[in-house]
């Protein structure tokens, strides 16, 4: 059936859909700030690098949890898989070029995501949560026991990471190169994820999250989409882990720990999941707060953080971004009524 072209331009809703993926004016802001940070705080680039890695990790989780609604408490499995791949290859002198090493880390993480996803993603809810947790625990135990290869409990210190592009040296004490390198990788990954979530594939993930039954009924291969999404998400988490290993020049069991998995979940909920920028805001708020609170209340800072999380869970289900949206909508509604009363009945 070939009907004449529909004039989408005359319909606001269609126009909004057609333009939804367009760059908004404020979107360069995070990147400008990240560059400004580099120049403004040359003594805090270690913290900055850590923050950027965390953002990337949270972004990977957002794809699975925020967009596709895959409830996981084991995402550090992929972070750790990436980190250990990079670490083991470098430590045993097999491969240590940073960028290709990162790609290998991503591949291994993706493979684990794909294999475990094929089985796990048939389940939902609490079962799924437990299974993701178990996968991570298994990997952690494997890393703990395979001492010969993984360094066991102590991990692998002093990884020999050669200069980036053969030119820029990674200096653990003064991590300028690390910061820019991680920022560059984060930027590329972000572009990719952004493209993905605005694509029809990304829409279908949202559809699965909103109503799985309906998604089946419109003929979407739901399980396959979920596995694909989980694999991509795992690959990105693997890149984050690989970056962590390269930037710190070591790898240890903390990369596979529940602590890391739970923290990234908290960060995403804090920032707002399924929003793309929730990962940024959540990571900044969380890391800044824990940094600050740890200095002011060295003994009880986790209490303050916990309290804030309870407040978020109670009053701002969609995180900081959700709070902001709510405020903006209120203000706009108020503005509209004020304008309406001013102009009087027409």
């Amino acid at each position, binding site marked *: 059936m070939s009907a004449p072209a529909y004039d989408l331009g005359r319909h606001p809703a*269609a126009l909004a859909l057609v*333009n939804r993926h367009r760059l908004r004016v404020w979107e360069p802001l995070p990147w400008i700030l990240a560059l400004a940070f580099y120049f403004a705080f040359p003594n805090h680039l270690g913290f900055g690098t850590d923050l950027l890695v965390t953002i990337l990790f949270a972004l990977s989780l957002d794809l699975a949890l925020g967009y596709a609604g895959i409830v996981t408490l084991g995402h550090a499995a992929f972070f750790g898989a990436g980190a250990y791949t990079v670490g083991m290859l470098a430590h045993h002198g097999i491969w240590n070029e940073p960028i290709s090493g990162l790609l290998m880390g991503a591949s291994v993480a993706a493979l684990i995501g794909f294999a475990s996803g094929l089985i796990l993603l048939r389940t939902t809810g609490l079962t799924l949560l437990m299974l993701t947790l178990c996968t991570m625990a298994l990997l952690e135990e494997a890393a703990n026991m395979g001492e010969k290869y993984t360094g066991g409990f102590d991990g692998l210190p002093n990884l020999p990471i050669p200069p980036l592009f053969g030119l820029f040296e990674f200096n653990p004490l003064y991590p300028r190169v690390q910061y820019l390198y991680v920022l560059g990788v984060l930027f590329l990954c972000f572009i990719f994820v952004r493209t993905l979530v605005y*694509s029809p594939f990304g829409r279908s993930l949202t*559809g699965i999250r909103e*109503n799985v039954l*309906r998604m089946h009924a*419109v*003929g*979407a291969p739901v399980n396959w989409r979920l596995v694909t999404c989980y694999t991509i998400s795992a690959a990105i988490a693997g890149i984050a882990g690989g970056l962590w290993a390269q930037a710190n020049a070591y790898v240890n069991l903390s990369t596979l720990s529940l602590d890391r998995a739970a923290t990234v979940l908290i960060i995403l909920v804090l920032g707002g999941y399924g929003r793309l920028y929730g990962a940024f805001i959540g990571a900044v708020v969380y890391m800044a707060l824990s940094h600050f609170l740890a200095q002011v209340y060295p003994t009880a800072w986790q209490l303050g953080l916990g309290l804030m999380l309870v407040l978020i869970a109670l009053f701002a289900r969609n995180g900081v971004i959700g709070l902001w949206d709510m405020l903006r909508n209120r203000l706009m509604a108020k503005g509209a009524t004020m304008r309406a009363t001013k102009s009087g009945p027409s």
Partner: protein
Amino acid sequence: MTDPLLETRALSKSFGALAAARDINFRLERGARHALIGPNGAGKTTFINLLTGVFLPTQGKVLLEGRDITTMQQSARVKLGIARTFQINRLFRGLSVLDNVYMAVAERLGAGAQMMKPAGMRNDVVEEAMRLLDVLKLSDYAGHRVSELPYGRQRLVELAIALGLEPQVLLLDEPAAGVPSTESHIILDAVAALPKQIGVLIIDHDMDLVFRFAERITVLVGGAIFAEGTPKEIGADQRVRDVYLGKAHHG
């Protein structure tokens, strides 16, 4: 003799001790306007769930144009042209009306797996979704979030999604239930305007609608086919009147 569009043979489904479908032999012809009626709990929705693959039958077969699809996945059946609406709305409540229909059209046109192109740049999908909304007089609500619409309008979105799949077999589970009578004609008009070759099976408790729309009626009672025939035959059947039509006023 050619195969019917959709056929079931001795189709049965039990939920534990409850036989929700018993030995159903049913045929839906090409271009049929067929109604399925029966008291509450008769197994009508269960029957549709068996046809669409939500449940696998305990026994029996489902055939589409002679092809055995009994164990086929839901999504694969949709690809073969079986679409349905749900008795209770199953929509993407947090998304806009346009997004809801977009989802269906995108899957049909094979856009759903596309990753590197923005959804809004699939103009073919957007255009078709908008056209469907025009037909169902929903385009004024295209940008509204589904959860903000009154229930009657949400029913129309249900229908729009099913139509977006351009089905060969359309299964409508009480499409007008909950729709104010001032608006139900939009649904009925849309159903009446469907391409002739689509086989339509409609479940409804509104006897006026059923007798006006259907060329054939199947009565389901207690999970089994109780009677089948033209509206005239069914209307004149005293047994049907006793078990169902007489009681319909209470249900």
